[in-house]
């Protein structure tokens, strides 16, 4: 099966999706169906969601039910092996480019926490401080500092320290991890990375040689302190599941292509859509515009202000028009956000009904959203307040996790 289809970074009028750039075609929305086809991954259907519920004995996470995590590669194989009683581990990561995290950043972590709790499996979290150092031109010290700061927010999402290993590239690279990087690097030509990531001859070699760094956490032998047995042997058949946003797919297309050639298993992926900016799907969530997103450091007042003033509404200009025509749910951001974060399926349906028909007003929907977001931010803030330096050290310590599969 032709796995790695090259993303068409050359064509100008098509959408661009890679780890460093996400632009829709011509100011439009991202076409996810086209993306799935272009990348060659699979849609995550309702049947798989039901299977997850059955296997884990609990309701599926809201992101699964609402199609936020909508695509996958070989997730069904993970479910197969889980059903047989075999194990797997989770791998996700973050490029620590800024201190402030917004909800878009949290989504993969919220979902990964659910996966960890539901399947009772270990997790490795990679902080690519080296990558941000190169791409964002920040100093190594600053990169490392941001990595630790971001680690706090990540921990506050509720990961279990007895099952989680967080590491930053500057701290951890070496040993078996580096050996695997060389193995991977040996199998990928310059032409290949140009095709996959859009590198050019002008890009410095740090960038060009970075992809293996993000690839090898997919292989258990990169973490001998976790996965080696008493004889220092690692079971290379231990599978890996990677929850990530779909713009990370290129890294793992490359990884999946290389894995069998070096005697390793292909990692499985479960991928999410992009989280829209407050101003709408076409808007860009950028660090320079704090009003484009809700940050975990926002106060309830900030949240209220941002949602009321900047959240793009699909409602009509006047109340009369609205009661008549109803809201345009396709472009309405508050409803979109609620579909991410309002857990109650029935309530969401009700809101969509009422708002779409015009009986409910934008203000009411926004009020509900403000409530939901405030609760989330408050919970996060409470959790983060309890993350000390020692706790970060513990999560990042190279130590065995004897109960990681319990």
């Amino acid at each position, binding site marked *: 099966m032709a796995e790695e289809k090259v993303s068409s970074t050359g064509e100008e009028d098509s959408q661009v999706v890679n780890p460093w750039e996400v632009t829709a075609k011509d100011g439009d929305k991202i076409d996810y169906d086209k993306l799935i086809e272009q990348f060659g991954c699979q849609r995550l259907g309702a049947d798989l969601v039901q299977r997850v519920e059955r296997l884990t004995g609990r309701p599926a996470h809201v992101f699964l039910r609402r199609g936020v995590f909508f695509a996958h590669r070989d997730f069904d194989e993970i479910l197969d092996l889980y059903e047989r009683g075999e194990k797997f581990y989770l791998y996700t990561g973050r490029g620590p480019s800024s201190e402030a995290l917004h909800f878009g950043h949290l989504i993969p972590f919220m979902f990964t926490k659910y996966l960890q*709790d539901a399947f009772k499996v270990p997790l490795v979290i990679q902080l690519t401080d080296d990558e941000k150092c190169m791409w964002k031109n920040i100093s190594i010290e600053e990169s490392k500092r941001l990595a630790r700061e971001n680690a706090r927010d990540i*921990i506050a999402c*509720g*990961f*279990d*320290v*007895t099952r989680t290993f967080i590491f930053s590239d500057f701290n951890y690279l070496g040993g078996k991890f580096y050996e695997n990087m060389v193995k991977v690097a040996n199998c990928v030509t310059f032409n290949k990375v140009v095709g996959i990531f859009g590198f050019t001859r002008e890009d410095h070699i740090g960038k060009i040689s970075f992809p293996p760094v993000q690839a090898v956490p997919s292989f258990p032998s990169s973490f001998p302190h976790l996965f080696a*047995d*008493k*004889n*220092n*042997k690692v079971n290379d058949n231990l599978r890996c599941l990677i929850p990530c946003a779909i713009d990370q797919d290129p890294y793992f297309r490359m990884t999946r292509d290389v894995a069998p050639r070096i005697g390793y298993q292909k990692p499985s992926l479960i991928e999410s859509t992009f989280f829209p900016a407050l101003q709408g799907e076409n808007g860009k969530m950028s660090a320079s515009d704090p009003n484009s997103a809700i940050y975990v450091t926002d106060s309830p007042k900030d949240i209220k202000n941002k949602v009321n003033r900047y959240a793009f509404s699909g409602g009509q200009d006047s109340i009369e028009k609205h009661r008549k025509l109803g809201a345009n749910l396709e472009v309405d951001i508050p409803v979109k956000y609620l579909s991410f974060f309002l857990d109650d399926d029935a309530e969401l349906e009700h809101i969509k009904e009422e708002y779409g028909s015009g009986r409910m007003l934008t203000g009411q929907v926004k009020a509900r959203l403000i409530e939901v977001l405030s609760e989330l931010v408050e*919970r996060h803030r*409470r*959790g983060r307040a*309890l*993350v*000390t330096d*020692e*706790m970060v*050290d*513990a*999560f990042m*310590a190279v*130590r065995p996790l004897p*109960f990681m599969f*319990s």
Partner: protein
Amino acid sequence: MGFTKDQLLDRLKELQINFVCYDHPVVLTVEAQAKYVGHLGGLLSKNLLLKDKKHRYYVVSALANTNVDLKVLSQRLGLGKGGLRMAPEESLQEILQVPLGCVTPFALINESAGTVSFLLDQGFKSQECCFFHPLSNDATISLGSSGLEKFLTSLGRKPAYVDLEATPLVGKDNPPDLADFVPSGVPALSDSAEKAPPIQPPVVTQAPENVKSTSGKASIKAKVQSGTTEKPKSTVNPLIEATDVEKVIEEIFAKFASAVQSENKQEEIETSLFDGVRKRITTDLQMQMMSFKNAAYSQGFQAGVEAVRIAMKNMSFRS
């Protein structure tokens, strides 16, 4: 002069011992050896040449992952604490006539090794594929335990397996269980089958029974270690359930709900009320409890790191 690898292999063939010989580049460590034969699914060995204060020598052949504690072994042999040391490099040539990194039971074939005592990990018992060096580091042979036993018998040694990880208490009432392994000075004879082998180490499974009389702790140890190679895991670790955040929150909530019912003597409270309450607070409680678990672990981890630091400081202080 010492036997060569080829002479050894010829001898094994004469004795009709089945083996497979794998050549590889010179290796000095088990890890390096594992690179070449580790994938074959056999048992790698770590082999030590030890020496006591009276210049008696011991070859210990253990599974690569068996923990060999020289202090414990020393006591079990009746040499007191700290009576055993790793033998110096010269002894390898002098006594075993093998190069560095090549200690192997096959070295006992040499006359110079006649008085060396041999302790064999019981992990090798009844195993089909055990890896040892054949007198040189550029090869590894794989043979079954029966083959190894045959070889030892041909040297006039009686094959005996030792539980190298056992830590029986040695004291007034409990004589050292491996005392018979201490060489008496009379060499084992290589070729003749007529002369009785002078070193007769007893088969070790009796050892734990000596420990019965002492404290309860010791007798529990004896029960666990009676003759089996694996330490049996009787029950699942209770801490696993106790630290399961979701489970604990469920239990707390159930307890709370039933207490509320009991207190409210007027009438039954609707279960839907409890369901509603539960829905409201479960996530928050779970997050709070996870913070608690992580905090407790982190404090313990800190304490552990400090404890090691203190121990290392004390060690360097003494030496």
